[in-house]
């Protein structure tokens, strides 16, 4: 058989060719990424960059990825494997087919995340698959941006698309397009983004074919096998260096947006030899509200965390997953059964990263950070435009990084298994009826520690148009990002609405709150946790934070035991020493 012959070539790949092909595949994924960015319509893709592109072999294994969003990238293989196994076996794909799906219960993320795949044919055989995933601005459902915080079934979250052929041999499946357009709030922008996704596939496919034309399909296939084997080998070698043992940790989600009670996420990590087993037994059963993480998210969060902790320099691909075994109990928030709602899956997803980081801090304390802001703080605002067409503004805000073993956490910077840019204020003001009044760091929001957690941010804007509906997905409003080894937790998040002189504290998961003209919406994001005791922080670093107005004089004194003269901003070294001795005695 042809396939067997090809795999026999494996050992014969020329190392320079392998390196060229590896970089060329990454470069194709990057080219697809740029195509999608530059041709997209909604701010979700073109400014926030909530999309990913990657290249797979014919078995659906991810080989190369553009540097975009780990949560997407590490979920696309499981999804593609499900499509190949249950819907469209590889033999049934024709040239110029495009397969589309968003079903969280078939390996997807949540309904707004639409995955598309197209095969790459070389000499009448499929050599590989290129894929693109885009977060669509709106996929219908109960609220603008499809982010209903109070939904109880996936049916309320919007249009659910099982794996379907959007194009069959290049012919568009018009019925799917029509159903799709009829169910979404902003068809023009969304269709623009779908076209961008299709353009990325087209560019990727052609570039991949060109590469195969140059080196031959057999060589490319051998290279793909070699790349997977290489990453797996390196991953295993590094895991061997981690002390064998069982490491537990647990953390909590504030609530599911419907029932006011916390949700436990528990993990037990077993490191043995060159493998790692991750067991979520003991995690709460699936929730009524939409914070459930479908298995694709759980896998993705786990793969991300372990690649990061084990060795971030390993080329990330399917080979990195092979040493990792995941146990996620069915019917829990980390592996829910349908029709549980999932749109707010990032709540549990981020917390999976937190518990893995916490567990591994017991094994490799110098390879982890304290907890970061821990949530994609999502807000979607929808209204009706002057011409009677609905509009949706969707955005995500981040906060501070957890402090690190050897340095502070970064202030307001994308962390964890997502990676999203902000939307420029000038861009939002051009497109939507808002006027911004602040985008600034929040002093004292980073957890105190020998190394300080990163600062959260305040983003504030007023609605200057007619009334609009606000929906949010926040977290860590009740359970702060934890510190490590004596570091203090970071500050919790808040969403506020200011109407005249009145200030309303919103719950983290608010649905369809009506904003009136003139209302200010204020987002206060979480700071990161500290690392090590704040009394051990170099007083000069505290002084510098005070000079830069990132830490107040009060916090310097109370949290760090550092005394600074308010007028001259000079450090009082003697009094600081004395105060720190007292504070440290009290602590014991």
């Amino acid at each position, binding site marked *: 058989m042809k396939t067997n012959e090809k795999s026999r070539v494996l050992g014969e790949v020329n190392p*320079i060719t392998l*390196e060229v092909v590896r970089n060329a595949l990454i470069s194709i994924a990057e080219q697809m990424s740029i195509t999608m960015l530059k041709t997209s319509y909604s701010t979700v893709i*073109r400014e926030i960059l909530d999309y990913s592109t990657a290249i797979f072999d014919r078995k659906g294994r991810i080989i190369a990825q553009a540097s975009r969003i780990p949560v997407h990238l590490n979920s696309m293989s499981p999804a593609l494997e499900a499509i190949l196994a249950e819907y469209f076996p590889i033999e049934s794909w024709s040239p110029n087919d495009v397969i589309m799906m968003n079903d969280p219960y078939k390996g997807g993320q949540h309904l707004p995340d639409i995955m598309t795949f197209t095969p790459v044919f070389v000499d009448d055989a499929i050599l590989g698959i290129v894929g693109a995933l885009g977060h669509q601005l709106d996929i219908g459902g109960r609220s603008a941006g499809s982010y209903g915080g109070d939904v109880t079934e996936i049916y309320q979250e919007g249009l659910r698309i099982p794996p379907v052929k959007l194009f069959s041999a290049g012919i568009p499946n018009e019925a799917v397009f029509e159903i799709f357009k009829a169910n979404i709030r902003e068809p023009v922008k969304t269709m623009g983004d779908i076209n961008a996704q299709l353009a990325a596939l087209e560019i990727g496919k052609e570039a991949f074919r060109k590469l195969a034309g140059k080196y031959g399909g057999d060589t490319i296939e051998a290279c793909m096998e070699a790349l997977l084997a290489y990453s797996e080998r390196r991953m295993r070698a590094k895991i061997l260096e981690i002390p064998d043992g069982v490491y537990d940790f647990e953390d909590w989600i504030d609530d599911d947006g419907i029932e006011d009670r916390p949700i436990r996420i528990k993990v037990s990590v077993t490191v043995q030899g060159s493998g790692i087993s991750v067991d979520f037994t003991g995690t709460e059963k699936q929730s009524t509200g939409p914070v459930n993480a479908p298995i694709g998210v759980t896998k993705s969060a786990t793969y991300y965390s372990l690649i990061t902790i084990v060795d971030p320099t390993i080329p990330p691909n399917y080979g990195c997953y092979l040493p990792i075994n995941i146990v996620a109990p069915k019917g829990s928030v980390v592996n829910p059964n349908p029709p549980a709602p999932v749109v707010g899956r990032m709540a549990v997803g981020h917390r999976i990263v937190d518990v893995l980081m916490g567990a591994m801090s017991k094994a490799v304390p110098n390879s982890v950070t304290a907890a970061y802001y821990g949530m994609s703080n999502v807000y979607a605002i929808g209204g009706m435009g002057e011409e009677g067409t609905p509009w949706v503004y969707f955005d995500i805000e*981040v906060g501070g990084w957890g402090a690190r073993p050897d340095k502070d956490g970064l202030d307001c910077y*994308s962390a964890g298994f997502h990676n999203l840019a902000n939307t420029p204020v000038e861009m939002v003001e*051009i497109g939507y009826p808002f006027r911004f009044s602040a985008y600034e760091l929040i002093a004292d929001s980073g957890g105190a520690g020998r190394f300080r957690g990163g600062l959260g941010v305040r983003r504030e804007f007023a609605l200057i148009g007619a009334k609009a509906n606000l929906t949010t997905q926040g977290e860590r409003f009740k359970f702060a990002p934890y510190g490590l080894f004596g570091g203090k937790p970071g500050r919790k998040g808040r969403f506020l609405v200011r109407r005249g002189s009145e200030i309303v504290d919103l719950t983290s998961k608010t649905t369809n709150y009506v904003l009136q003209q003139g209302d200010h919406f204020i987002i206060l994001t979480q700071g990161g946790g500290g690392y090590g005791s704040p009394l051990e922080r170099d007083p000069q670093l505290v002084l510098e934070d005070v000079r830069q*107005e990132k830490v107040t004089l009060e916090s310097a004194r109370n949290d760090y035991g550092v005394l600074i003269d308010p007028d001259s901003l000079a450090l009082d070294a003697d009094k600081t020493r004395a105060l720190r001795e007292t504070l440290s005695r009290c602590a014991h």
Partner: protein
Amino acid sequence: MSAFRVGIDIGGTFTDLVAVDQTSNELVTAKLPTTPADPTIGFVNVLNRFLERVENGNGPEIVMVVHGTTTATNAVLEGKLPPVALITTKGFRDVLEIGRRLRKDLYNLFIDKPKAIVERRMRFEIDERTGHDGSVLKGIDAAEADEIFQSLARADVSAVAICFLNSYANPGNEIDMKQLLKGKAPDLFLTSSYEICREFREYERASTTVMNAALMPVVSRYIDRLHEAMNKFRGRPNIFIMQSNGGVATVESAKESPVNLLLSGPAGGVIACRYVGKLVGRTNLIGFDMGGTSTDVSVIIDGNPNVSMEGEIAGYPIKRPMIEINTIGAGGGSVAWIDHGGSLRVGPRSAGADPGPICYDKGGKEPTVTDANVILGRIDPDYFLGGEIRLRKEAAEKLTGEMAKSMGMEAVVLAEGIIRIANANMERAIKVSSVEKGLDPRDFTLVAFGGAGALHANTLAEMLDIPAVIVPEVSSEFSALGLLATDIRHDHVITRIVRSDRADIAEMEEIHAGLETKARRQLADEGVDPGNIKVIKTVDIRYVGQAYEINIQHPGAGSGENALQRLVHDFHAAHKRLYAYSAPEKIVELVNFRVTGIGTMNPIGLKKCELTADSSPAPALKRKRFVYFNELGGFHECPIYERGLLLSGHIVKGPAVIEQADSTTLVLAGYQAFIDQYKNLLITRG
């Protein structure tokens, strides 16, 4: 009397000069050490050296000097920018620090983000506001502005940047603020965002603006010193400065917009590559510029360098057009050292010009790549810079030997290891620009230049399977030659969003006309003859709803409705070409109106020689010497040729060394160097 145009390129180690005789097209070169404490000293030294060299009865006339400088770049890369303040809209002082908050390295928990150029306490807020439509919602309050001025006066800052929200739509408030400050402190270095980058996206605009402000004192001081020095030369020749966009600027423009100089140093080399490629009919080139402290790699595809509308330096976005160049901190002066794990490492620290490599005998104690090349017999210690600097081989051997001993090896083995590691670093740099962009080095010609480029090029070509290497005649001063092969070039831009279906043709033409007037006036002020002014009008266009545009050239001839239709038509075609689809039924938006003003300079010519009938290089053979060749297992007695005596048509078979005053070319066994009609060495297998 001869009249010359002179290019001077100051690198980390050497200051290079190339002069072209306007009538005969003869080239004259000169090279002297860079003087890092005050680079203008080296500038003057090398000019004097040139004058000595060509001095005759009447004395030569210097028509103009074009200068490539790393002053701006080094200030950024070495973290030596002076303290700067920023005045911005109330509530938004952290825009500069938050940035776009996106990480490039997805899996690494230990990354850093670039430190904001203006520290937080030096970012002042003023309660002003302009809407996205350009309406002024709140003007500048003079009392509040004065308070800020008082704070600025107390603070220790060298320059001030002004960047307000939505100022691209209406710079009125920025202008008011600027005038208030200018009124109080006329000599203050001041940049407003609308002057340097009138485009939307507040972070990128602010980043470009503060970078410009921070560079103003650095570049102004430098240029003023140059000016003063030029007074000593007859006729006080005009100076022009190379910019990142591959064109040159007058000193006045350079002082106002120093952010345009971030690639001033390496841009000359890229332009020179393009020039020589065109002469010899090769359009796909990898430029490999290996100097003493750094190496620049660039790529030319189909005869043109890639120019992007924005770039990045040290993690800071700069929204100005610039050539794409990849720089690494490794060169001939890179120092060899032993790391914690006991492994041999080379660079990124460089011995620079001072103290320089051990063999310079100026106090250098650590072996460098150059020392290793001397030990291996590749560089003749008595013929370095044509014998101007006598290298002390025995000193290099002694100290390298001591280091080698501590590692339990011979000096020669260590020297060979240093070269091997340096080459691996270079190989990686070339890969970043080629392989990592999906370009196969096998489709390119390597153009080797800079002081050390020719020594390493053949080996790198072998490592990367690059089929041909060109070593230009003025290989060592090639970047300086490029300075003379370009025009004056200024880019102007305004963001004004116009839909194609609601376009006011008259308004659009007015925007372009306004920019064109500005461009023509600037060039005229710079003394460019109106007949030599060219203007290129372009528009960045996108589909309504998209956020990224494609730069489309304005048809120029034909105007009004026709021009618009043509622009839109060309946009659809470009979108199809770049992104595989277009939507001709959709409405497009014109976003950024751009005008590039070009002041053409007289093109230089290189002399084309006849090929000799006899390809034997024997007349240029100087002698034989023992030189270390890996592929031959050690020292091998090989012929040494004098480059100046080689004629077009000669073929030098490797292993061989070709020497010229300021650079040495190594030809490996199994390769040959053909001297083409422009006196380039073309090295291929043979």
